[in-house]
């Protein structure tokens, strides 16, 4: 953990999962322990089918876990208390809108159900997202449909936003509009976002904490800088007889003749010296992108499973 989140951005958890497991015929979600602090933006990254959506559905109480407990804004996720649900906004691509109706109809509909609906903010979002209230859902492009769905969630001003792949299929402009709007919502430090994506770049841009999910497990979870500062890649020249020094988290990734590529997930500034002291010549030492870190973590995790 880097020192930046110390003291943490929010001391109280907006949402937490403890030992959550769920078994389907072809998929197991195993022992998920996660905590999302109030006021933070939290990213879930994972390949398709990793379990991100299942985790979010469990958080929303749409799926009942076989084991474990979930608390949302201090209340159990399964609770039918409407006051809890009222403060939580959920977005998922498979949410349906009435095709023959207009955006205005849906705004009216959601407003009738949620007393916290902020009409002025809804109008602002219409404008900022370039949507036309009178337009029917069936005439919208994919990007417009996603933005309309997000508008309906955001204008309720929820304290906790659970967003399942909100930027999937958006063009770069629409994506930036959405990310920007999400950051506007957390100007209020009482608000929290949990956000899933397989675009590591979106996550790297706006998230304070990042969780990697693969094959139904959480394989790593840290604050953003913890990942970006903790990982490093080295290119070394070393004879065939070279034995890598014993450094925690150091791994050989590839070798071509005398060239070795090593990565480390617990980087400290003295690692380069230790490598050189072991008889290797350092050719380069570079920071890694979140995408590279994610791929390396998935590969390591899968290898460890095989053992």
């Amino acid at each position, binding site marked *: 953990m880097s020192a930046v989140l110390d003291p943490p951005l929010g001391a109280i958890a907006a949402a937490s999962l403890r030992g959550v497991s769920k078994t389907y015929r072809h998929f197991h979600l195993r022992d998920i322990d996660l905590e999302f602090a109030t006021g*933070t933006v939290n990213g879930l990254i994972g390949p398709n089918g990793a379990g991100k959506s299942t985790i979010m559905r469990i958080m929303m109480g749409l799926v009942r876990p076989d084991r474990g407990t979930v608390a949302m804004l201090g209340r159990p996720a399964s609770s039918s208390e409407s006051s809890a649900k009222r403060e939580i906004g959920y977005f998922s691509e498979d949410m349906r809108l009435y095709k023959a109706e207009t955006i205005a109809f849906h705004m009216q509909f959601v407003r009738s159900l949620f007393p916290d609906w902020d009409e002025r903010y809804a109008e602002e979002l219409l404008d900022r997202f370039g949507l036309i209230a009178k337009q029917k859902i069936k005439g919208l492009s994919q990007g417009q449909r996603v933005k309309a769905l997000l508008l309906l969630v955001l204008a309720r001003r929820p304290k906790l936003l659970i967003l399942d792949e909100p930027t999937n299929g958006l063009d770069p402009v629409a994506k930036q509009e959405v990310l920007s709007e999400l*950051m*506007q919502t957390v*100007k209020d430090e009482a608000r929290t976002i949990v956000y899933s994506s397989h675009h590591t*770049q979106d996550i790297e*841009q*706006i998230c304070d904490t990042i969780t990697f999910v693969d094959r139904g497990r959480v394989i790593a979870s840290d604050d*953003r*800088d913890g990942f970006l500062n903790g990982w490093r890649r080295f290119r070394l020249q070393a004879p065939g007889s070279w034995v890598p020094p014993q450094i925690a988290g150091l791994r050989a990734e590839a070798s071509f003749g005398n060239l070795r590529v090593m990565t480390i997930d617990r980087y400290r500034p003295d690692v380069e010296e230790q490598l050189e002291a072991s008889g290797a010549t350092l050719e380069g030492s570079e920071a890694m992108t979140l995408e590279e870190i994610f791929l390396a973590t998935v590969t390591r995790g899968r290898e460890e499973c095989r053992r």
Partner: protein
Amino acid sequence: MTDESVTVYSVYMNRHSWISLSQSDPRALYLQVIEQIQRRVAVGDLPPGTELPSIRQLAADLSVSVITIKRAYLELEREGTITTRQGKGSVVADRPGLQSSMAQRELDEHMNQAARLGILLGLSKSEMQRRIAEAYEKSQRKRK
């Protein structure tokens, strides 16, 4: 992916045109924020006492994570460019840049890297000195 990264910050930049972040810049975003605030302070655009936007406000304006801006502000505070008072936000310090330890550290890192590469290429110490002098003069000419 690559063509997207170029457009990432261009769309919403106009909200806070005094800082512009680039994802094609290999340095971490927080370092870019630090550098640009330092530069604005150095040229006098942000005189002592100027209020800076709150961490969350700037994060929202630049569409980057709160942790990025928080880290930048912490570093700026540590090296004396800004001061932060609980509940009152951050202002440009009275005598900023007295010890810009941040930039010093960055310079040291680059120097070490340059030395390492020099040794790798088999350059002598005097050859390295000559090259650094050359680079220095080149940059100086560019600034004029």
